[in-house]
């Protein structure tokens, strides 16, 4: 399991990933690779398997066949230490999923304290800094229920970052937000990308994808139809399906 991984190799490597729910095959052989510090966006119509793929990457769902390697660790290995894997991979969800009985600060502090066993005082300094970074200084003692969607999502980002992951996964993180709060979340993600965080985003925000992504993958019905740097994909898509999708959303 402990294959030697060096930063010059892809940090995430998916090879022919297949995933079925019963008779329904959702992922039909997905291959992609992400280098350290890269930002990739996965776009495509609803039900094309984007979210499933991202959930397979941090082993929230098992894959049926194929291979996903993160820093050289095989995710589909039955002996995989899922907890160790997830410490490397942060995930932000569409519905924020903050812990409603904890304040913003506590939400951020919980995992480092209980999972990593770090000292409370030390974690608190870091958690406050993270909340400030996502522009939520002053909201430390507020409960999720009292925060707007955009604010909750930024707390969720800070909560993931507190674990100091190597990779961040964003699963349609702006899809449930009001249009006016989408921007504040995107700004946060962009800053993260600029800091060199490896990010995999499933998104419907085409302009954002165009702006921040190093590489864009277009998926439809469980396959990657086309991929390339955003300027090529968005302006000179080769596949007819990609063209049709882009003409609908742009």
């Amino acid at each position, binding site marked *: 399991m402990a294959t030697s991984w060096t930063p010059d190799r892809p940090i995430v490597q998916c090879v022919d990933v297949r995933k079925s729910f019963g008779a329904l095959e959702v992922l039909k052989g997905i291959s992609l690779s992400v280098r350290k510090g890269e930002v990739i966006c996965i776009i495509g119509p609803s039900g094309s398997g984007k979210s499933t793929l991202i959930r397979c990457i941090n082993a929230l769902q098992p894959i049926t066949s194929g291979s996903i390697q993160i820093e050289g660790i095989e995710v589909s290995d039955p002996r995989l230490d899922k907890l160790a894997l997830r410490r490397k991979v942060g995930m932000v969800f569409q519905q924020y999923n903050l812990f409603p009985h904890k304040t913003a600060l506590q939400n951020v502090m919980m*995992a480092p304290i209980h999972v990593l066993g770090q000292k409370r005082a030390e974690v608190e300094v870091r958690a406050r800094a993270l909340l400030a970074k996502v522009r939520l200084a002053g909201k430390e003692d507020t409960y999720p229920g009292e925060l707007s969607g955009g604010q909750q999502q930024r707390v969720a980002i800070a909560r993931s970052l507190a674990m100091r992951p190597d990779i961040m996964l964003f699963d349609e993180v702006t899809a449930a937000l009001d249009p006016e709060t989408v921007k504040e979340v995107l700004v946060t993600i962009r800053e993260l990308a600029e800091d060199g965080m490896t990010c995999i985003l499933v998104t419907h925000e085409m302009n954002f994808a165009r702006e921040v992504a190093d590489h864009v993958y277009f998926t439809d019905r469980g396959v990657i139809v086309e991929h390339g740097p955003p300027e090529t994909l968005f302006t000179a898509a080769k596949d007819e399906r990609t063209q049709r999708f882009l003409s609908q959303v742009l």
Partner: protein
Amino acid sequence: MKTGEPGHRLAVLLPYRPAPVRMSVRIGPLPAALLCFCAIMAASTAWAQTGPAMLSPLQVIVKWSPLLLRGFAFNILISLLSMLLGTIAGLGLGLALLSESRLLAAVSWLVTQFFRNAPWLVLLFFVMFLVPFQVIMFKTTIPLPDWIKATVGFALPVMANVAEVVRGAVRSIPSTQWEAAESLSFTRRQTMWLIMLPQCIKRMLPPWMNIYAIVAMSTVLASIVGVSEMLTLTAQVHAAEGGRPELFAPLYGFALLCFFLYCYPINIWTARLERRFRVR
């Protein structure tokens, strides 16, 4: 398994109160108490007209009330202890119901169903007659008086009902909370104790209090197996006063009144908590 509308969340807790607890005619605690008191008074005035030679029912109650109230205190003690015992055991059983181990979940499901669907009195009989009156452990004899056995007998159904409340409450938390915890590398146990159960307390409190009110009222069943709680004492007092038929209603009315005054506020409070947690 995901929750539907928020109003449905508590639906899993419904089995404990299949029918609405509150009556359509709302009687405040004070008028209700007055009603009971009037019934006792009416009986005593009726008696006063027939002859002064014997004590009136009211005098009988006053005379025996210290003993009867001591019996009532005993009922409360039994109910509190069996609730404590049943809650601790029920929490364990509830967690076992939610266990990832199929075997453990299946066994605890059987246990839960068995104790939830057995008549309380039958369980009480079983515990009374199957458990010895004393156990000898490390050469010391530990006596097991009837009331302790009765407490255990009541704790069994409490355990099963609390287990269902725990299971229902944890299941009612959206599965996305599990995913969020998983993605942050929390272990299953940590997720349960740090994230699930703290969120469940609010949801569990009203049905838990409901169970308590039922236990408190059920403690009189212990009279059947000879524990000297209030109902047993009431029967003895009645006998000591010559078993006069006109004493029957006032004496048992007094017992009713005591239980009512104890349980009614609990129910009111439960309903209030339910309403408060629902708006959230």
